[in-house]
């Protein structure tokens, strides 16, 4: 427990003192949302267009920041220092929690901004929020383990996107569909998809937890 806590604390301290990294991800999210609203110029969109746009912004903001937590360890040459101090399991859980917290933050910024500036009003707000967070949880889960792999492969930006995209696509598919339903207020909307996303996150997180050490330790 303490190992996880100490690592989380360390990651937050390092990321927030190096303000540029965190700022870039949030800035990207805000700028993209604002750009879209400017271009949209007051046109009203169908619910599924809104859903697609929101998740595109969320996806690319994620691609910008989610691998960073592992790539930074390699780039800043702290990987060996970290490896010596803590078990792979502690490190993985703390990185996963960091990504979940970070991405939840990003989504919490994107969604209200988007809804406000593009004047979309979800008719079933609880479903909208549940989908946004469970989709984010799923994306954070996949990208943590993939970020670890990419960091060992030299961390070139496009490799991370290439690896993540096909695995995130089903999450996006489900999230977009559900978000559209929540905006539309369709009667068929239910929480089955949210459960699916949470279950998906759980499975990916469990497998990643078990397999992480084979990526991290020689």
């Amino acid at each position, binding site marked *: 427990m303490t190992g996880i806590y100490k690592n989380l604390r360390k990651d937050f301290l390092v990321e927030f003192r190096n303000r540029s990294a965190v700022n870039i991800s949030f800035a990207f999210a805000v700028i993209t949302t604002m750009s879209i609203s400017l271009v949209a110029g007051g046109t009203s969109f169908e619910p599924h267009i809104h859903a697609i746009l929101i998740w595109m912004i969320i996806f690319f903001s994620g691609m910008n920041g989610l691998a960073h937590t592992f790539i930074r360890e390699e780039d800043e040459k702290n990987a060996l220092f970290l490896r010596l101090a803590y078990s792979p399991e502690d490190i993985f859980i703390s990185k996963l929690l960091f990504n979940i917290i970070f991405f939840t933050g990003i989504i919490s910024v994107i969604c209200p901004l988007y809804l406000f500036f593009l004047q979309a009003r979800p008719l079933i707000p609880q479903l909208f929020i549940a989908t946004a967070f469970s989709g984010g949880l799923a994306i954070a889960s996949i990208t943590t383990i993939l970020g670890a792999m990419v960091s060992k492969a*030299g961390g070139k930006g496009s*490799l991370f996107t290439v*690896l993540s995209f096909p695995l995130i696509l089903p999450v996006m598919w489900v999230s977009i569909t559900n978000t559209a339903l929540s905006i539309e207020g369709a009667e068929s909307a239910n929480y089955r998809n949210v459960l699916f996303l949470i279950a998906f996150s759980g499975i990916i997180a469990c497998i990643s937890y078990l*397999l992480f050490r084979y*990526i991290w330790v020689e």
Partner: protein
Amino acid sequence: MKIHRLVYILMPLVIYMSFLWAPSAAILGDASRILYYHVPVAWVAVIAFIVAGVESIIIIIKNDEQSLMREERAYNTTLIGLVFTILALVTGAIWANLSWGSYWNWDPRQISIVILLLIYIAYFSLNSALEGNESRGKISSVYLILAMVVMPLFVFIIPRVYDSLHPDTIINADKKMHLEEAMKITLFTSMGAFTLLYIYIYNIMNRISAVKIKIREKRHAL
């Protein structure tokens, strides 16, 4: 155990059966014969990936001198899987065009196969990016295991959950096959033949890998 040599007999038999022996289907006519190629090819793609996943699990669990050979085997089966996925996609598109009028229909099952294809192309990107890294085999194995876990989602669950134009697959809710006897026999023979083909190709690729490894070991001993 040269059972895969049977493919020399079985494959020509299947070609004969699929084109000449089996009757045409009711609505599609002769075009339906693509069934005897599309289904087995998709089946082999799935098998190849399961083998890759299982091989990867063994690589992770058992870390010994055999690991290098296992890593080569995982790579080989993934490559075969990739080729057969492309074939499944292409034969599927041809059939889609014949049945529904266009090659691409935004059908969940078609999209699922494309995603599967992307997952395995990503594997090859990861593998080459890890060139020279000692842990390459293990990291790629982790990726394959992850892919193997996610794969059933695409191939079996999502197309079922979302409405699809794709006809019910062999593993369907009815648990019945809507084919005539002769067509069933042809289909199953074809699946057998293609499975043997997979084993045949896999076997050859593995033998080449084994020789490569042997050469490297001999060179190191000098």
